[in-house]
């Protein structure tokens, strides 16, 4: 049996949970899902019809929002009772946090960001996982009675199989210490760069922008194309743009239809964030810049003289 830890935010199921169910079904037909907290009834229904045999719904009167250690206790309660061969979660901050607590308490290894998982024997598994923000792939053998793993987003397609699972409610055991850290409030939209991760077009600038001023032109072009503005780490480290706009390994990972990199050299830190773009255009004065090896189209020119012309022509084309 494979157990899937499914996350939700105030009753909305994490869409990646269904990908994790898919990954689990690739290992064993007998998949159970676990969800914790109040307001999760709709998620229970969503999971019950996603091809799992059972959904375990853990609650406790003391839990009213995401509480990492209580969620870990819920995983451990089901683990101890049903002895799954593996426990999988989405490779999100919450998924890896909850499984890291489980791993710590049970003294088990945890492999994160897996794109391939194979159970090779009793107590062994082989995984492929991302290193360096996906610039390297690691193959590893894990020795553990229960494999704990998080699954890379979009590595597994959601399967269409529906089913009708049984639902089992249970009480999550918690101590005061388990409740110490939980979400106490949410603050909204403090950051700009809304929708960068989902944008169909991303217009990005790097060191070659020479300062914050020229980003006004990137905003203009992004507006015309209905896209978002991004930037490289050099730009956020210099304080030219907010960190929320950083594309890269320590920023946002984007997968737009079109990515245009203005004055970005193409360090691995940046490529980790933009390599999933369907089309990548690089504009750089240096035709030998590393970004060129990742580009579909190259313009070797000064971005400061090119941008005004490009904006004018794009606007004319849009109006035509």
């Amino acid at each position, binding site marked *: 049996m494979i157990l899937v830890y499914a996350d939700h935010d105030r009753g909305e199921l994490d869409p990646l949970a269904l990908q994790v169910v898919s990954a689990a079904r690739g290992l064993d037909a007998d998949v159970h899902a676990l969800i914790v907290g109040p307001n999760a009834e709709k998620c229970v229904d969503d999971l019950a019809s996603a091809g799992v045999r059972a959904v375990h719904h853990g609650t406790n009167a003391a839990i009213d929002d995401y509480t990492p250690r209580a969620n870990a206790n819920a995983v451990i309660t089901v683990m101890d009772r049903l002895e799954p061969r593996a426990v999988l979660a989405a490779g999100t901050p919450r998924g890896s*946090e909850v499984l890291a607590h489980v791993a710590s308490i049970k003294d088990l290894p945890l492999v994160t960001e897996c794109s391939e998982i194979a159970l090779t024997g009793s107590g062994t598994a082989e995984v492929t996982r991302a290193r360096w923000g996906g610039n390297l792939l690691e193959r590893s053998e894990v020795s553990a009675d229960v494999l704990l793993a998080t699954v890379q987003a979009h590595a597994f397609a959601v399967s269409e199989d529906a089913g009708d699972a049984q639902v089992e409610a249970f009480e999550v055991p918690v101590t005061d210490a388990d409740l110490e850290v939980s*979400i106490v409030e949410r603050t909204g939209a403090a950051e700009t760069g809304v929708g960068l991760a989902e944008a169909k077009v991303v217009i990005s600038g790097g060191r070659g922008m020479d300062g914050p001023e020229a980003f006004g032109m990137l905003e203009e072009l992004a507006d015309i194309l209905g896209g978002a503005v991004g930037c490289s780490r050099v730009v956020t480290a210099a304080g030219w743009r907010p960190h929320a706009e950083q594309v890269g390994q320590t920023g946002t990972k984007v997968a737009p*239809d079109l990515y245009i990199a203005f004055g970005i050299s193409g360090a691995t830190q940046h490529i980790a964030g933009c390599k999933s773009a369907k089309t990548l255009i690089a504009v750089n004065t240096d035709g030998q810049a590393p970004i060129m090896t990742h580009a579909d189209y190259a313009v070797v020119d000064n971005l400061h003289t090119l941008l005004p012309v490009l904006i004018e022509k794009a606007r004319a084309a849009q109006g035509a």
Partner: protein
Amino acid sequence: MDICVCIKRYPSLGSAIMLTDDGMAIDTDKLGFTLSPHEECAVEAAVQLKEEHGGTVTLISMGPEGVEEQIREQFAIGADRAIWIRSDSTDVDPQAAAKAIGDAIEADETAFDLILLGSESADNANAQTGVRLAHRLGRPVATAIKGMTIADGVATCERAVGTMREVYRVPLPAVVTVKDGLNIPRYPSVPGRIKARKKPIDEVTGDLDAPSIQLMGLTAPIRESKGAQDLGAGDEAADALVDVMKQIGVLS
């Protein structure tokens, strides 16, 4: 406030990754070394807290000869002293790493109010050492934090989720793992660099458990050039770009 910051030395990759012949490691022969942005932000946060509340900043780093270089860099930013856990490699299994760091912290005479780490390492990104360390020390933990203030013995921590921020209150002493964007790390000053030479590094031997995750091999996804089509320059390039945008369907 006494703060401990865990830092890790990484090869500075630049734009291409070369592997060793056996495919088991990055060939670092021609590479410099650095910290990750997450950890640079952790040190900056610690130094800011020291400036605000007083106290000390201690660095912990694990690895072979060479980690001193990154320790001295962060001394120049404002950290006061360091514990160097000597090990054969910086590539340490996270279970073993958390145990060795926990041992070093318990053995140290400072009772740290706050222990900071990066949310995940730049290289292996196991994203668990902070949580394991918190359990090892019996302390609460918040992870992947991009905003933090400390008052009345409580760290108020913010995690960015899309355009929202989740707020967690963590009673000290605690472990917090942080992300790039928490602050903008300062550059070392010249006086900072001079002071850095004299700050103390205590060396301890890491007692590392055998790893339960065994590396079988590394591969770099295809590195050959996609063979970018040259669109020229100037007006010609602008026209060609507009054509590409129309072709993709992002411009009507």
